[in-house]
């Protein structure tokens, strides 16, 4: 098993937005989904998820609603607001540009 990579600073918010964009989820569900879509390649300290969720909610990027989970328990579900969707798009583009630039730079050969 390849050791999981450290999370780059600032990427947690992006991953949360992406995970929630696939459908409303509760906190634990968001964590599982991030694991699923990243192929468990990144470690996230589980507790650290929550300050990030609250921050995104506070900024109006996430909406919350108390609902019932699959095993019939009360849970807080997060969904993306219109503002959040816009932000996800912008952040994704920014990430792709950065990633492309960094990849290009790293692929450069000695002339």
């Amino acid at each position, binding site marked *: 098993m390849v050791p999981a990579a450290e999370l780059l600073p600032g990427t947690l918010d992006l991953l949360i937005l992406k995970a929630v964009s696939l459908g409303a989820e509760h906190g634990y569900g968001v964590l599982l989904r991030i694991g699923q879509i990243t192929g468990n390649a990144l470690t996230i300290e*589980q507790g650290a998820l929550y300050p990030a969720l609250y*921050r995104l909610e506070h900024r109006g990027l996430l909406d919350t609603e108390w609902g019932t989970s699959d095993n019939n328990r009360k849970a807080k579900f997060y969904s993306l607001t219109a503002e959040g969707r816009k932000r996800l798009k912008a952040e994704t583009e920014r990430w792709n540009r950065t990633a492309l630039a960094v990849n290009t730079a790293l692929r450069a050969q000695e002339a």
Partner: protein
Amino acid sequence: MALWARLRSFWHNVLHRSDLERNMSDEVQFHLERRAEDLIAHGGLSREEAMRIARLEFGSVEKYKEEARQSLGLRLVDELRADLRYAFRTLGKSKGFTAAAIATLVLGIGANTAVFSVVDALLQRRLPVKNPEELVVFDWLRTSESMVAGYSGYGRPGPAPGVGVRASFSALTVERFHEHTTTLADVFAFSPTGTLNIVADRQADTASGLFVTGNYFTGLGVQALVGRTLSAPDDRPQAEPVAVISHRYWRRRFASDPSVVGKTIDVNRSPVAIVGVTPEGFDGPRMGESSDISLPIAMAARLNPTGRARPVSVWWLQMMGRLKPDVTREQALAALQTTFADTVRESWAARPPDTRNPTRSELPQLRVRPGAQGPDGPRIDAQQILSAVFGVVAAILLIGCANLATLLLVRASARRQEVAVRLTLGASRWRVMRQLMTEALVLAGVGGIGGAILAWWGKDFLLWLPAGETPIVDPRIDPRVLAFTAALSAIAAVLFGIAPALRATRTDLGPSLNTSAQKGGLTRGMASKALLIAQLAISLVLLVGAGLLVRTLYNFSRVDVGFNADNLLVFSIDPVSESDNPSRIFEMYDRLVAAIEAVPGVQSCTMSVMPLIARREWDETVQPDGGGLPKSAFIQIARWNFLETMGIPLIAGRDLSSADTLGRPRVAIINETMARELFGEPTPVGRNFQFVNGGDRNVPIEVIGVAGDSKYASLAQRVPSTLFMPHTQASPSGMTVAVRTTSDPMTVASAIRAAVRQTDPTIALAGMKTQREQIAETIGKPRAFAVLTTVAGMIGLLLACVGLYGVVSYDTIRRTHEIGLRMALGARRFDVLRLVMRQTVAVVTIGAGIGIAFALTGSRLIGGLLFGVAPSDPFAIGSALVLLIGAALAASYLPARRASQLDPTQALKYE
């Protein structure tokens, strides 16, 4: 908006804090349980083991919760809440200090708020009419060369000496301005009627009134609440007489009865129909005054005793206008100047040729002034009083803040150890200061709330204070006033809180932590000493003012008025109208006097045109026979028994008699001053004089007697040349009735009212009071200021003494060790006493010195209120000084004596 979302989420979380905390716990709990379930499903762990691992994976729950709170922006709130809780706890511990602090602030902030509410109502509020900012007021500048003579209206001192501001215009000017429509949307005019006699529902009373042009209400944009307002057709000479009444009068006189519309009332004996009521809050354009009844100007002629309209040469109408949109006052002035000049010349030409003084050749200068607050007038007069009152209450608040700062400084020094511990444990200085400022804000907040409550019921009391010239205003505690209170509280908190907070957190941690033993010395506590000096100085200024005013009142009380003012009831009546012939009036006056004299307890009854000592003056120029120089003399027209009833002695000649009537030779009694000044002899009985102006000029009037000197218009005025003439030889007019009683005059007041009603139910009695009350009204201002400065000075002194006591007490406690040491080394009690008192003496001396310097300049400002005492009166200054020094020494003697009675062995062990 992202910001909006954040604010909303912030407020939601602050307001629903307990929900938030519970939800946060629930969410974490749910996470842990789901994780544990997954762990059980995948790894077959026991439930306890699974939960343990889930918790480990999660990390520190509390840390993440705190991070979550922080990301919601709640940390500041949490700290504030902790500060508040801490502040309440510390303040609760020292109840005495807290009570004193809050009482000081409630008093100071309350007094300031109350005064502000009156100032706001009088000086800031606009007329409650449509678009008041479009309104303009016209006035003009008068010099002694101005081509205007028949002036009857309001005047004020102008911008330069010799120049007066005049507010009234000729009807001609009003008419021409109204025709001029290029810059003005409307022009309207009005003039006070004087006191009106109203008979409605067979009840007589008096009311204030305003003559207005037909377009007055439409020009102002005031709609009727009930019925209608006036319109142009009402202001034609032949129109049916109608009136509009104010809401205030409607409530007072007609109990807000809507059927008042259509009711016919008698105004000065002429029937007038009420057609409408104006809305509440609108009391006419002259703010500070209230007009009960508005009548068309066309009615002025009918209500005038002569029955004639005023000629255009008489300038008696105040004029306002409404600017057209986008027209400035300057443009309006430029457009109106020629019209104004034309009307000045025309109204001058309308005067009889022999009254046109050729030296009056200058055209007066027209001004167009902002009219949103109506004409200057009672507003401006009250402004002068109010600004002085504001000064005094501001001084109280300043003393209060200085005092609190002193006490807090003492506490700050006492708390240095606590603060030092907190700073050492890692609290930032800013954080500790914020905590200390929270305490100050809590005090100021409670003081502000208390002050607002105090002001709410104190505002009407305040209006009563400057008695005699009370303007009519409705001070309201509205959001503006509350904003002022809040700002004042915050400023107060900063004033008294910042220095102690800075002092307490000064970062020389070492000595405070290591040792609490302090050394004494003059440089220590400079801030608290400076504050004490300021308090003492302000108190002294107030006390000197109080001393001067109290002496003034004492001097007033010793003035010999020249007549017997005790057991004398006065009131005024004005039953005269133009249709009456004089003999009917005189006959009715005789019946009235007879009816009053028949009341048990009444000794005699008389009447005069001018009330005595009521700040009213009537003087004419008279010329003695034998070609002496003409001089001015004050006129009193009275019933023949006036001198006898008032108790003015007759020194020579005969008294007036009931036989001195129209058709008989004109006679007069003159006072001693007039005998001396006009005739140059003590008893010029049998000589003649005549009036220089007026309808009866050149008619010789014989001096039949000389009366003793008596005061005329006010206590302060020296006795003027005065002449008494029988009212039966003058044209009839309203009268002030004076009733001499055998005991307290107020006990027969209702019997007298009944007697008047029986004689003629349409006679309205106005302003019934005792002569003593009448005199007291004329000195209402110095009396009010005497009360104000005395109370303020005493409060200030009391606060200063509390501050002094606090500082000296603290000082001696801090120096217990040193004092013990000195005593052990042989210092006697007296030496200790002197040691402690030395500082007080220094503080008091400097404070008194500064105070005297300010008092000497400040007392000149109230020079106009003083009587018989110089602003630099050594007695007033001396007694204020004695009071101040005595109180200050007493306040510091108590702790000093305690220090001197210390047991040296105990004191040395003290720590």
